[in-house]
């Protein structure tokens, strides 16, 4: 499908965003300058767990150094959930009484330059009484060396249980396999770190905050709660944002500090996170531990899964996603795309003296998929089957769609087995099996890997309301205006930071209104200019914001037709929108969108008296008919050569078969898939945020923390 104009839904249109990005003309927080702006540097904890006995400001700099005592009117960040038994944590923007992870901010220092602010920070003296650090997530809950939040009595944010009775299964299952699987703690490492610039606008009585953020409206709500300002007194602008992946879906301590400082000092203040802060001080992700048992029939059909899963949630519950999201996801998505009769999952969201975690691209999915697919391979070995055969024996079939799985996930559509068959064919499994048998001349061993998953996007109210975190998504709005010159302006509350929404939503508008994508301007990421939104996360924007854009475009189309119908004296039903024009079907009578808009705004005398005064501007909302989310699915197949002498791995071939439904822009979708695959390669082979027994991070620069680079990724992947 390529739409009528070749520029609509289905066209691989080049990205509108690239014009500025390829020429270095984007504007990130680091590019913004304000007269009189101060730069901030944070004094951060060098230890993982300690009581603060005292903080001494350097002499002569008392008015440049601020601690939590100075911010006495500011409230702690509290991300609670409605789930029974959840223990909330108070995360003070600057440490109060205790530090709970290396890098936790203790004081903020301001100066004309960052270097000078760091000079001051180096002289701040903090007296610590060190406490034993809680480093290992399983030990944290079973034999804790100390308590991260003493008032809790243990180190568990939340324990959940999806129960089932396995007594009979245990007795009869011919295949029973138990494994212990761990995934590494990672750091999402977007190209641009975080950055915040705050300025108090005295004319508007409003805080203006630029932040490299994924969900500016949520940041505004959170700031309002912590600072005691009404939401109208805060404007959050997320300018160009250099990658998010979940890392920027958070209300930051630094945002609160800078907001407070800019008002107190009457000057703009900026903080730019550097790579060291990004790696050691901020947030990590994805550290899971699975004690998992799988039961299957001799022919590879699954009977059930029984799993104890622990998630290392770090020291605090972050706003808005909270410390329970990852663990809750594990319990609800562990069964993957497979059918089974029994499922039991006990989860613990453990609290440790490590930075808190955020949901990284594919919230919990990566760890869950890894654990489950390893088990599927184990079943295949035990049953003497090809790994793909075991998958085919268990995947939900197209004839069973839509399908409610064992955890009540509603799989909407798809042909999961076909994805596997295509991937196996494309990678040419027989060829590699033969080569494996023959052996390699250089002594390397060939391995073929297979992984299948389905992935929920656009989670709606019913999915999130049960968790009751500070942000429950529901609907999404779009403001649309056909300007007097025929340019369509769209405003959405989400933020586009690599998702290419400026291009893809222009294509959606083109599909409906016929307006050229070049004549569509998307405004996003600014709370003063856009409708409220929960922001960009959880694979939701194409569906939710895209749905809002489509609904708004339809509304504008109706209004254009009404006006044009009056002007051309024809019935609305006879009009079609095409190539930026309103055409009378079957005739050569037509008006451009610009002509219609011009009359509406600038020459209303040409309109009859009974014209609808609604005009060519509208804010409309979108809510999917079912809010259980979309389910896309994919099968990845890879061939690697492993050098047994040195453990080196080389990727020889990589195949991705993914069904993303209707693709708005296939090139953009491919880009998203390649990027995700590179991140997966990093997860599997390179990235690890390690801590020593004292809770000290062992990777504090990109010399130690290794995201995969260009030479480590396959040159081409075949994507279908």
């Amino acid at each position: 499908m390529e739409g009528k104009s070749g520029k609509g839904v289905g066209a691989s249109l080049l990205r509108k965003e690239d014009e500025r990005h390829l020429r270095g003309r984007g504007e990130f927080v680091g590019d913004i300058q304000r007269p009189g702006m101060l730069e901030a540097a944070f004094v951060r904890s060098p230890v993982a767990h300690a009581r603060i006995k005292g903080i001494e400001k350097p002499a002569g700099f008392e008015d440049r150094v601020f601690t939590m005592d100075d911010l006495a009117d500011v409230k702690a960040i509290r991300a609670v959930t409605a789930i029974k038994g959840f223990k909330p944590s108070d995360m003070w923007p600057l440490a109060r009484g205790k530090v709970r992870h290396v890098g936790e901010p203790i004081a903020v220092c301001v100066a004309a330059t960052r270097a000078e602010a760091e000079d001051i920070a180096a002289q701040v003296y903090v007296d610590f009484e060190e406490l034993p650090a809680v480093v290992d997530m399983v030990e944290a809950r079973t034999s804790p060396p100390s308590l991260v939040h003493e008032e809790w009595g243990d180190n568990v944010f939340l324990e959940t249980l999806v129960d089932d009775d396995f007594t009979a299964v245990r007795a009869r299952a011919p295949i029973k396999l138990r494994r212990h699987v761990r995934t590494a703690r990672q750091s999402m490492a977007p190209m641009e770190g975080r950055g915040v610039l705050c300025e108090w606008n005295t004319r508007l009585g409003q805080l203006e905050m630029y932040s490299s953020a994924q969900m500016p409206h949520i940041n505004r709500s959170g700031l309002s709660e912590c600072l005691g300002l009404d939401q109208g007194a805060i404007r959050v602008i997320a300018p160009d944002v250099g990658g998010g992946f979940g890392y920027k879906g958070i209300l930051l301590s630094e945002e609160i500090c800078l907001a407070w400082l800019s008002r107190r000092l009457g000057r703009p203040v900026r903080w730019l996170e550097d790579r060291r802060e990004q790696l050691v001080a901020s947030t990590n992700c994805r550290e899971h531990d699975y004690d998992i048992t799988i039961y299957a029939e001799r022919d590879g059909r699954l009977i059930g899964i029984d799993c104890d899963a622990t998630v290392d949630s770090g020291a605090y519950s972050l706003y808005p996603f909270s410390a329970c999201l990852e663990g809750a996801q594990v319990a609800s998505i562990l069964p993957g795309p497979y059918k089974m009769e029994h499922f039991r999952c006990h989860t613990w969201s453990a609290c440790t003296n490590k930075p808190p975690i955020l949901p990284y691209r594919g919230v919990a999915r990566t760890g869950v998929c890894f654990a489950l697919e390893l088990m599927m391979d184990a079943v295949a070995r035990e049953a003497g089957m090809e790994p793909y055969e075991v998958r085919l024996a268990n995947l939900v079939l197209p004839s069973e769609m839509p399908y409610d799985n064992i955890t009540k996930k509603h799989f909407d559509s798809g042909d999961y087995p076909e994805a596997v068959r295509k991937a196996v064919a494309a990678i040419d499994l027989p060829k590699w099996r033969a080569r494996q048998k023959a052996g390699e001349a250089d002594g390397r061993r060939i391995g073929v890997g297979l992984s299948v998953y389905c992935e929920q996007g656009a989670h709606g109210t019913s999915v999130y309301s049960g968790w009751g975190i500070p942000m429950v998504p529901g609907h999404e709005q779009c403001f649309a205006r056909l300007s007097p010159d025929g340019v369509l302006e769209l405003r959405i509350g989400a933020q586009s930071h690599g998702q290419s929404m400026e291009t893809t939503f222009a294509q959606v508008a083109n599909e409906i209104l016929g307006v050229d994508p070049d004549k569509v301007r998307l405004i996003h990421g600014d709370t003063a200019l856009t409708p409220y939104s929960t922001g960009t996360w959880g694979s939701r924007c194409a569906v939710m914001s895209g749905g809002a854009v489509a609904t708004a475009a339809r509304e504008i189309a109706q209004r254009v037709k009404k006006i044009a119908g009056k002007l051309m004296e024809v019935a609305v039903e006879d009009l079609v929108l095409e190539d930026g024009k309103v055409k009378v079907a079957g005739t050569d009578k037509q008006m451009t969108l610009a002509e219609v808009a011009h009359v509406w705004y600038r020459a209303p005398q040409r309109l009859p008296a009974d014209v609808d005064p609604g005009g060519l501007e509208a804010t409309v909302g979108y809510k999917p008919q079912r809010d259980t989310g979309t389910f896309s699915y994919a099968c990845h197949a890879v061939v690697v050569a492993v050098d047994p002498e040195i453990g080196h791995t080389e990727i020889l071939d990589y195949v991705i078969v993914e069904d993303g439904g209707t693709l708005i822009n296939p090139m953009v979708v491919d880009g998203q898939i390649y990027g995700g695959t590179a991140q997966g390669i990093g997860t599997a082979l390179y990235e690890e945020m390690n801590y020593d027994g004292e809770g000290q991070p062992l990777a504090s620069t990109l010399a130690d923390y290794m995201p995969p680079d260009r030479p480590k990724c396959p040159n081409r992947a075949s994507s279908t």
Partner: protein
Amino acid sequence: MKAAAFDYEKPADVAAAVKLLSGAQGMGKVIAGGQSLGPMLNLRLAQPQLLVDVRGIAEMCAVTETPEALTIGACVTHARIEDGKLPDATRGLLPAVAADIAYRAVRNRGTLGGSLAHADPAADWVNTLALLDAVAILQGPAGRRELKVTEFMHGPFATALAEDELLVAVRIARLSKAARWGYYKFCRKTGEFAEAIGAMLVDPERKVCRAVVGATTSVPHVVADARAIAERFMPDEALKAVEAAGLGDDPYERQMHFAALKRAAARMHGGGS
């Protein structure tokens, strides 16, 4: 993080640079390509009061040649070596090693002398120059002195350089036509420092047969008579060298360095690639 404040000078000759360093009384630091020092300044691991930029010193950028040897100025960049801009006195060894250091952006700035003076045990030149038994030429207030690079490096990030001394150049004996070499380094990712290096050189005309166990926890371990590893690869002898390099206890280190030697030998016999 940003560097602490420092002064900056760019002298035109070696004597002036030495004088500046002497005047700084231990608070001065030489900067060449800045590829190692830059991050250390930014992380505030180094906080010198004065930076003496030596890249404007013609002698330190020069390359001179005699029938016996090649003398390479300390400020010659990895990129110049990679691009074959120097006379080939090592039968292709230097350009091959240079091409595999980090990324081109780092090679454009990073220098041979900077790498040697930085004395990271995992650095390529540290190990290659030890293999070649090269000579370091130093100059301080008391004048010039020469040291074998194996004596120049004292330990990890520690050298014979006095606070007011410069590494001016490195002299390498010319290899004969019959010389062959093998070099193997293992790192998981481009630009990552090596986890293990194995290097070998056989030059029968000059009666040289050396091997290096590189990327150790300290100085490169040189096997001066490496016939049992280089001419014919004997696993037991290779393991002995790894143990002598202090890498015998950790099974991973032991295996990686053993494999690096084995592969360096294989490369050498495969035609010196």
